[in-house]
């Protein structure tokens, strides 16, 4: 196991940011942490990246303890925080050189690893990092996190604020890095990215609701899921919520998803049976969680 986390707890004052988190990530996997803003994703990343001390519980990266052996961990991890945190007043190449030097390495040594990504920003080598576009900044940050060939890569919301095409490209890059044997822990608020991970954990209010492969999470959806397409959706939503036969109903893209308390007459007009997505599972788990 590359990452082992057991019973991790962190509180800021009286607010619990993380409550009793445990999970394991095998070597060379892409492990996704999916959850809304404020769920505790960044806190978890900061603890694993040795930037924050937990209140209780332990975490090890490649067998090193995040508290005792933090110096060793810093040599083998790459961390890309959610906010762009490179030097805005240094150029692309200067940032890259700085981080390579910080790891007692140089750009040539692991050039093969960043080649595909770096080639896209190479034309802007002398531009100040602060003047790059959002997608370029993200690529530069990834290059800087990879420059020392880390064993584990922590990516905290790498695709937030990035357009759909760049997001797709980004996930392709992650696939390639995985093929190089790098273990990747990635967080995202986008449910559609969940299916691209090998394993996902759904996080809400500092607790993991469920950990499994995306396929199994979808299989675990306990009911049949139906969809309605309609024009006066908001109006219908209120009516449907009050309907005694309906268990749950919510907006999903341009339609509504709903489950019934008992499986309905299959010949209902307008209603179609659909396969649930990770997002449906997440909504289901959140609802279950709030009842308990």
């Amino acid at each position, binding site marked *: 196991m590359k990452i082992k986390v057991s019973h991790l707890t962190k509180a800021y004052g009286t607010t619990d940011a993380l409550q009793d988190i445990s999970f394991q990530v095998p070597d060379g996997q892409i492990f996704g942490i999916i959850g809304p803003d404020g769920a505790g994703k960044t806190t978890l990343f900061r603890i694993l*990246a*040795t*930037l*924050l*001390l937990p209140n209780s519980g332990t975490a090890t990266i490649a067998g090193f303890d995040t508290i005792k052996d*933090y*110096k060793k961990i*810093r*040599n083998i*991890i790459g*961390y890309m*925080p959610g*906010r*762009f*945190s*490179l*030097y*805005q*007043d*240094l150029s692309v190449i*200067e940032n890259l050189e*700085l*981080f390579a*030097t*910080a*790891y*007692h390495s140089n750009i040539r040594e692991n050039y093969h690893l960043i080649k595909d990504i770096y080639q896209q920003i190479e034309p802007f080598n002398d531009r100040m990092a602060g003047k790059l576009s959002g997608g370029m900044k993200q690529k530069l940050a990834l290059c*800087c996190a990879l420059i020392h060939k880390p064993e584990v890569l922590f990516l905290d919301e790498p695709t937030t604020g990035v357009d759909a095409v760049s997001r797709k490209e980004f996930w392709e890059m992650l696939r390639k890095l995985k093929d190089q044997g790098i273990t990747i822990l990635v967080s995202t608020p986008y449910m559609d990215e969940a299916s691209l991970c090998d394993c996902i954990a759904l996080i809400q209010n500092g607790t993991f609701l469920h950990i499994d492969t995306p396929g199994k999470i979808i299989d675990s959806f306990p009911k049949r899921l139906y969809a309605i397409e309609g024009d006066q959706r908001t109006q219908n939503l209120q009516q449907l919520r009050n309907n005694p036969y309906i268990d749950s109903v919510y907006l999903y893209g341009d339609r509504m998803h709903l489950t019934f308390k008992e499986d309905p007459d299959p010949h209902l007009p307008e209603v179609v049976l659909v396969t649930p997505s990770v997002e449906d599972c997440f909504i289901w788990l959140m609802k279950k969680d709030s009842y308990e």
Partner: protein
Amino acid sequence: MLVFLIEKEFKQIIRHSFIPKLLIVFPVMVMLVFPWAATMEIKNISINITDLDHSTLSKKLVQKISASNYFRLTGLSSSHADAIEEIEFGNADILLEIKSGFEKQLIREGATNVSISSNAVNGAKGGLGAAYLSGILQEYTMEQLAILGIKPVPVIKTTESYLFNPMLNYKIFIIPAIITMLLTMLCGFLPALNIVGEKEAGTMEQINVTPVPKFSFILAKLIPYWIIGVIALSLCFALANLFYGLTPSGSISTIYIFAAIFLLVVSGLGLIISNYSSTLQQAMFVMFFFMMIMILISGLFTPVSSMPKWAQLITMINPLKYFIQVMRAVYLKGSGMGELTVQMVALIFFAVGANIWAVISYRKTTH
């Protein structure tokens, strides 16, 4: 690694839109403008004279006063009430009232009375103005009595000689202190703001996840400012010499040795502040607060010995005070290391204390 980090700091300082200008403009401004503005000499006191005697002698007195470069005659009033009004409107700082019968009495009795009223809102100005005016009056009386052939009442004549600053030039007093202030700003506060800035930008954290030791990172922040501080100090020496003809009477190497220790003190203080602040705004306010207190109780403007006992006790823990003492002693008295052991011990103590505190507070607030 350290060299590379220092190189990075210099690159950033040079690219910064404001700091490089500040580093040149600040010493020049401070040396060329401040000594003129921060003078405690009282000049241009506005005087209003009420002459009720209208005699030759009283007119001569008015002439003598307006010829003095301490006073500026801003008006003549016809009554005491009018004159008081002038003070109330802010047109006059000091009033001189010459009563009728001034000339007669002076000739007949060899002595007479005039009244001086002075606006003491600015106590120093009011008091000194009255004193200057009395001096002029006394001189005037002597002259007139001599002309009239009246033997004056015997008076004690004093001769003054001022040690170390014979011309009582206030600039010579203030410049060594201003240089101290400059070093505190450049080497204490700028690196601290720089560190807090990196904290705010998140770059500090990005460096922290790398194997770069924190000690190297902080040292790489301080070294460029130390170098800048020494350059600024030398620039100040050159400017002081060029514009005020002021050269240290003592050895300049003594100043550099003390300056090196003082730089450690102020950068230590800066680090402490940076450890406790998470935003630039917070750091700025804390610095502003400490700077105000440190300057006011350092003896920069007002002598420590005339402060109340409790304030004098506070000055004991103000590193600025010791360095200002050193600067003045070396510049004006020509003191060497031997005479400055107290200051040396105090500054070393502050340097060690501040930096230990900085290290401890750093450990506490971060991993």
